[in-house]
């Protein structure tokens, strides 16, 4: 094993794979992917439903198929990877990053890397973090854990199911559990809108007659050994349960799909600054974190809705990491801060160095609630440069806007770019 590499990629899921392929194609030589699971592909391996790759490959693939398109490229390009290998520490000293990892074959070892790409993905919000009152029996699973059981182990985590949260995994699992023989009694969603894609609500719930109860939440879990039932209540506009609306639903399983949290414990240990809104690293135009030479992409950076965007973003991170490892990046001179206004929750990136943009800069963001018939406006300092009519903007769907370098260069005193949702013309 090479203990010195140009680019070390933490995570062999869709983000890590795309970053590796892009880095290799843009000339980086020594790349190493470290993956904690038994195979490359990350969470896509358990996403056996279709709907992946419509943007990237113009065809409908399953999760494992989508992953394999990248795994093949990694194999063809001869990019080395280690499986069942978990990174336990990353540190930076001068221009070198030290990545300590552990696996059965090599024990504990440290790799010296010029650049690091963080692609660790995210975890699901747990029952504990949601603080749902009640007993703590068996039968409470995050939707992803249940998905692993059903799709990879062929085992049923339960037979009568209530799903809390209408995130995409929850919707997908409502359909999957139904197809595998379980009775899914309800999907309850605390918010007045779903956090999942519209197409998933139609294809996973409506097609199977599974009720989606918006503004409803689980307020109690019954059962001492195995779940016996849950109490669902309607929530008011402050997301508090409304007394008198409680309904007991007997079930043996509660699946939770209540949000994803980027897994940035390693990043924090390294000293990377996080954005409290995304819980992911603060990054610049190169998707480079506050620690020079450390890049981030995919769900560890911010939670995505479509894997196609993960690949696109990771590709950019891989190219920038390669440029960094090669050396000779343009010096940072013209720095611009990105700001959000009027319902835009965050932007990725949040800093731009104009010299380092190739031709255009993709800015990804999400909105905080449902917006209809609004304008998406971009200001350079105080000047409106983009104004797009948007029929609907949903919190569950990631948005993006492309900023042209030539436009930015027209504003020599450009200090802030503001992305805003505006109602009035």
């Amino acid at each position: 094993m090479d203990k010195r590499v140009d680019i070390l990629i933490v995570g062999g899921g869709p983000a890590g794979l795309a970053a590796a392929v892009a880095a290799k194609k843009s000339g980086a030589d020594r790349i190493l992917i470290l993956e904690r699971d038994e195979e490359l592909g990350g969470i896509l391996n358990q996403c056996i439903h279709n709907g992946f790759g419509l943007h990237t490959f113009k065809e409908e693939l399953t999760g494992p198929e989508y992953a394999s398109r990248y795994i093949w490229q990694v194999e063809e390009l001869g990019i080395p990877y280690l499986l069942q290998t978990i990174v336990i520490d990353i540190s930076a000293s001068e221009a070198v990053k030290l990545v300590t990892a552990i696996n059965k074959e090599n024990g504990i070892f440290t790799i010296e890397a010029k650049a690091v790409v963080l692609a660790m993905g995210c975890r699901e919000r747990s029952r504990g973090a949601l603080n749902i009152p009640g007993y703590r029996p068996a039968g409470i699973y995050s939707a992803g854990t249940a998905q692993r059981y059903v799709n990879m182990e062929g085992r049923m985590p339960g037979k009568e199911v209530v799903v809390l949260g209408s995130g995409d995994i929850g919707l997908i699992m409502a359909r999957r559990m139904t197809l595998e023989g379980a009775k899914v009694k309800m999907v309850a969603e605390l918010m007045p809108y779903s956090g999942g894609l519209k197409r998933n609500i139609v294809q996973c719930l409506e097609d199977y007659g599974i009720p989606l109860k918006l503004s409803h939440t689980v307020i109690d879990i019954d059962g001492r050994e195995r779940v016996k039932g849950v109490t669902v209540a309607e929530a008011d506009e402050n997301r508090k349960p409304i007394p008198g609306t409680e309904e007991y639903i007997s079930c043996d399983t509660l699946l939770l799909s209540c949000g994803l949290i980027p897994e940035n414990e390693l990043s924090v240990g390294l000293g990377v600054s996080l954005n409290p809104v995304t819980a992911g690293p603060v990054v610049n135009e190169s998707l480079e974190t506050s620690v020079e030479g450390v890049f981030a992409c995919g769900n560890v950076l911010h939670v995505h809705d479509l894997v196609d965007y993960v690949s696109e973003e990771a590709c950019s991170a891989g190219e920038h990491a390669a440029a960094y490892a090669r050396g000779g990046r343009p010096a940072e001179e013209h720095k611009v801060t990105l700001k959000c206004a009027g319902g835009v929750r965050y932007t990725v990136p949040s800093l731009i160095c104009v010299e380092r943009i190739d031709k255009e800069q993709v800015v990804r963001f999400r909105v905080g609630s449902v917006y209809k018939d609004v304008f998406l406006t971009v200001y350079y300092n105080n000047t409106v440069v983009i104004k797009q009519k948007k029929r609907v903007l949903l919190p569950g769907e990631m948005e993006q806007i492309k900023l042209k370098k030539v436009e930015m260069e027209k504003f020599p005193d450009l200090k802030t770019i503001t992305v805003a949702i505006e109602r009035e013309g």
Partner: protein
Amino acid sequence: MYDVIVIGAGVTGAAIARELSKYEYEGKVAVLERASDICEGTSKANSGIVHAGHDATPGTLKAKLNVLGNQRMEQLSKELDFPFKRNGTLVLCFDGKDRDKMQELLKKGRLNGVEGLRIIEAEEIQRLEPNVSNEACAALYAPSGGIVCPFGLTAALAENACENGVEFYLNTKVERIRKSPAGYVLQTSAGIFESQIIVNAAGLYADALHNMVSEKKLHIVPRKGEYCLFDKAVGGYVSHTIFQLPTRYGKGVLVTPTVHGNLMMGPTAVDIEDKEGTNTTEEGIADLLKRGGLSIKRVPAEKIITSFAGLRAHEDGGDFVIEEVEDAQGFIDVAGIESPGLTCAPAIGEYVAGMVLERLPAPKKVDFKACREAIRGMADADEEERKALIEKNPAYANVICRCELVTEGEIMDAIHRPLGATTLDGVKRRTRAGMGRCQSGFCAPKTVEILARELGKDIGEITKSGGSSMFLTGYDKAEV
């Protein structure tokens, strides 16, 4: 026919068993436990505090055993290799009018023999604990207070007792007790047991067992305490255990670091009827965050990783009931062991063993093994230890729980050591796999797989905590 049977494998029963295992009993000593694992009742859900001993009324058993238990804990933690830290406690006073209550506590503490107690003022409080509320005008500082891992302590005591010859019977619920000429006959869910002496350490159910043999009835009320546990990211928010001046229902809501580096708040104190009522409630959690929040500048509520509830075994009299039952010779009650029961456990063990020995003398074992080694964890190991562990068994390089850095090697150790884990919760309490921020989302399937493999079972047979707490319910499409 046993010489002694201890009913209950919580911290109290385990401490008594370990103490008895120092003696050569010909007819043997056994522990009967209704649950599928040790430490499944009150011992698993409490504050994990080693109290200094200033709360109990001087002269009570609680007062006497608390100070002794606190003193014993350090040595015991070295012998039995469990996490214990003397982090000191502060009892906050928020109102000048309450200073006399604080003085009273100081006086009680000194009478009880607590060392190093002193009153500190606001400035020193802030110096010691910058995140404690500015409203705290003074505090009682007890440097001898500490924190312990309640599972670690209980497992250490039980494993050591087991290694020294005490027999443990799990999934064994005592249903009836009958006096016999030689002692007592116990009818259990796993058959008949007979013993000369019975030690009743059955926690919440100690009254039910007592009442089977005595006319003088006991009554134990389950007093619920709810807790919130916070991410290690805020584990250093306070370094001492922070109490408020006590109320009628106990020592109030505390804020404390845990020995494993989390932050914890709790407990509430509500008397309930259901002895299995370990559910958390919306009101309870809201109440504890509100009351605990008075002690600190800000409650990092966004960092809560789980909440849980435990039930204290509160006896109507308010003190521990540790005595031979008047009308049932050879039947020793160890009942009403509520706070500071965890602290007292080592002292209760000695005290009860003394009572047993008085009735049934036995020589000291010459080959008693005083020491026990804990599961070696990768998380706390230094580089050298880590390498040595991996060299011994490469499974120590296979990380199963990424949040707490627990490896396959540790889980295998937890399964195969004396009184090893057979359930997901059993592994969790012994190794911390699943106790981290993702709350077992990633590691549970892997742990289940290791349990099944090591125990020679199918994964469908593995439970969360015994009984019908099945993790899986069959195969895909089995019902289609």
